[in-house]
């Protein structure tokens, strides 16, 4: 019996519900974390075969809802009806058995196992009690190829970038979620290309009768995919709309209870002196990169996953040795041997992976925010407690990080709020050059707008910004200059809005 057979068998066990009929109903579903009510009693109905989007601010309770439905956490109260029958959904196994599966916001896979092993984990293909590794690798490869993800099934997961890991999680869920499939911000780390593939996949699954729940902060995706959309605000379900009967503005105002006139806040400031210039900088993953950043400008770097932008940033920041080329800092040739040197020069880096590079997850928010500046908070032998507290609280309120106090562990924050901590770390550092690598991954629209406004504030103070993003609208709208990376090389450069989306995309793909 093979794993795939298992899945088909489960499929058969499900109680088929006619398309358009309720497949999953929540009645007063609630989740409390101690005193925090992450999800207030919610009544939402999901119809069989629909694509149901869920939107809401960071910390609104979207992921909490998903975790409840997949048995990751247990509800505090309320009921769930699956195909008309009350169910517990107390364990992941139960959810999987009913054909419910999710691609979680944070990739939850085993780094030490191969792609294939991860895809078949808990459901291995076996013969005579032994695993059939070859068969699993082949089957996994077939699934990956079928979905159009160009990934080797035999690779170790830790060798993949986050984006690729996200694709693995997607493939895995698609393989298992035979009835009900949930995507929690699946495109956060994906570029246009992969997003497009994902959308095709979702439509295909929908046509096969799978019910899809889709969570995203990107409105255009919601409008492109969804049949209906539900909005959460502060753990409350504030409403569900048919997609045809609503618009951006309404959803946003439902989400944040006010309107945003403009998301991409772009002020054209006078450009100042060159802050940093690289000439032919090369290193692992990038080759011969020459670019410069001047005071008051945003330099955008766009490219597909693995194009080498993050590697370039890490090289510039001294995290990884560069193998060739030169760096000029305010006109002087410098060698940036380590991160400390970069920081001392005045470079700040908000890295792309908040989990692996950005945060000390099991430490308090306050400590995370202050980590880069403890030397400055130190007076004599000890840290100036007052200033430490002040700074942490200031960043928390400036960035509207949704936490009661700075003492909460970073791990207890919602994805978007974690991202804000990563950015908040560097705001009090007072650098000249800020490198933001995917700064708005998982951040809600309202906060995004605030972050962009914050960029403007930094620019006003005479700083320069390198903005790395796989979200084209963002780099496109914000960058004074936009560089396109492909396979570790800088292949094209544009000034503000001097090229069309399609042009930039084509250059990134390299057709």
């Amino acid at each position: 019996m093979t794993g795939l057979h298992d899945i088909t068998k489960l499929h058969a066990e499900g109680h088929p519900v006619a398309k358009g009929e309720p497949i999953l109903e929540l009645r007063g579903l609630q989740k409390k974390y101690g005193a925090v009510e992450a999800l207030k009693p919610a009544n939402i109905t999901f119809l069989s075969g629909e694509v149901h989007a869920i939107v809401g601010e960071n910390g609104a309770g979207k992921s909490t809802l998903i975790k409840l439905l997949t048995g990751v956490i247990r509800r505090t109260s309320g009921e769930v009806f699956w195909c008309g029958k009350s169910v517990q959904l107390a364990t992941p196994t139960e959810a999987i058995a009913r054909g419910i599966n999710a691609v979680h916001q944070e990739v939850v896979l085993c780094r030490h196992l191969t792609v294939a092993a991860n895809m078949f984990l808990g459901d291995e293909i076996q013969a005579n009690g032994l695993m059939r590794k070859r068969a699993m690798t082949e089957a996994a490869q077939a699934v990956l190829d079928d979905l159009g993800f160009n990934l080797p099934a035999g690779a170790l997961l830790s060798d993949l970038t986050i984006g690729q890991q996200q694709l693995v999680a997607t493939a895995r869920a698609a393989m298992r979620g035979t009835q009900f499939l949930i995507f929690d911000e699946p495109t956060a780390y994906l570029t246009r290309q992969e997003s497009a593939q994902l959308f095709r996949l979702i439509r295909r699954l929908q046509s096969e009768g799978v019910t899809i729940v889709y969570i995203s902060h990107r409105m255009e995706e919601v409008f492109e995919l969804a049949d209906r959309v539900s909005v959460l605000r502060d753990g409350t379900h504030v409403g569900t709309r048919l997609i045809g009967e609503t618009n951006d503005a309404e959803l946003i105002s439902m989400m944040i209870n006010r309107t945003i006139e403009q998301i991409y806040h772009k002020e054209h400031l006078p450009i100042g002196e060159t802050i940093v210039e690289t000439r032919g900088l090369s290193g692992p993953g990038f080759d011969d990169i020459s670019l410069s950043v001047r005071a008051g400008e945003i330099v955008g770097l766009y490219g597909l996953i693995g194009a080498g932008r993050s590697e370039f940033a890490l090289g510039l920041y001294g995290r990884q040795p560069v193998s060739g080329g030169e760096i000029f800092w305010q006109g002087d040739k410098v060698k940036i041997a380590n991160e400390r040197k970069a920081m001392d020069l005045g470079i700040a880096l908000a890295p792309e992976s908040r989990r692996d590079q950005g945060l000390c997850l099991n430490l308090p928010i306050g400590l995370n925010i202050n980590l880069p500046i403890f030397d400055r908070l130190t007076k004599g032998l000890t840290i100036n407690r007052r200033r430490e507290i002040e700074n942490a609280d200031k960043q928390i309120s400036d960035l509207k990080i949704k936490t009661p106090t700075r003492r909460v562990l970073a791990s207890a924050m919602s994805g978007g709020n974690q991202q804000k901590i990563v950015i908040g770390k560097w705001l009090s550092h007072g650098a000249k050059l800020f490198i933001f690598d995917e700064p708005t991954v998982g951040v809600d629209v309202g906060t995004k707008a605030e972050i962009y406004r914050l960029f403007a504030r930094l620019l006003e103070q005479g700083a320069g910004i390198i903005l790395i993003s796989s979200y084209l609208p963002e780099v496109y709208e914000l960058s004074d200059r936009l560089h396109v990376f492909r396979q570790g090389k800088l292949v094209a450069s544009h000034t503000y809005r001097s090229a069309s989306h399609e042009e930039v995309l084509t250059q990134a793909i390299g057709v």
Partner: protein
Amino acid sequence: MSVETTTETAPVPKRGMNILFGLTLLGLLLFLWLLLGMSTTSFWTSNNISNLLRQGSMTAILAVGQTFVIITAGIDLSVGAVVGFASVTIAWLLQAGVPLWPAMGLTLLVGVAIGAFHAFGIVRMGLPAFIITLATLTSLRGIGLLITNGSTISISNDAFTDFSRADFLGVPSLFWMVLVVAVPAYIFLHLSRWGRYLFAVGSNSEAARLSGVNVNRTIYLAYILSSTCAAFVGLLLASRIGIGNATQAEGWELQAIASSVIGGTSLFGAVGSVHGPLLGAFILATINNGANLLNVNSFWQRIITGALIIIIVYFDQLRRRASR
């Protein structure tokens, strides 16, 4: 080129990387043997090779059991104590007139129970593995001493005590026992889904849980295997020394962990094999055997053992880094 492709980061799967690693530790072991063969006349005598195989056997089995636990990112400090306790148990049972086979079976069951208790403490009581196994280590020695009243129980069953001295096909029976453990262990760890679950739990227990892996059961499995291996070694030890004594095998837990780590197991979990700990154990045994043959002062022997551990693991580290 079509739009579908993102060719850049397509890491090549590292086929057989693990086997290569095992081979090179084997290389180190063979190198040590060659060296000893050249510097002493007695090393390559069949008698000495038998000794060497016997001496490494018990640690090797403990190390394999320990490896299961370490792969789940746990640790089992109690194995030494379990060995001592098992030797007391079998001696006591035999003394009480229980026939050999049931006595051995019961002793192994004691091992199973101890492992289950560890897992219970970890899974249900939420205790750190370090603490619960340290506590059993302390308590088991006490219970064993209580049973023997601080002394030893002689084993008069000759069939039992002769076993450890016997050879089969010219190879010491103790070494055969290593194979008896290692072969199923290999199948279990590398070929069965249970082995894979051990790795998954050690790598990311949350991910494993979300995949429907029964994490608790996996942890029970790991600790039970480790304790059962230890109880088995207790039988072998009792056979070898002909007595039951609760204070035996002191410090063997560290030997077992060291063998496992030398064999490439990571204490952070999710990295490990069956052949690695075996090689680790026999490397340690070789160092001791060689030092004895070379008549190295026993104090120097300690110094050299420490230094060799560093050197071996360092080279291994280098090689692994290079092979990346």
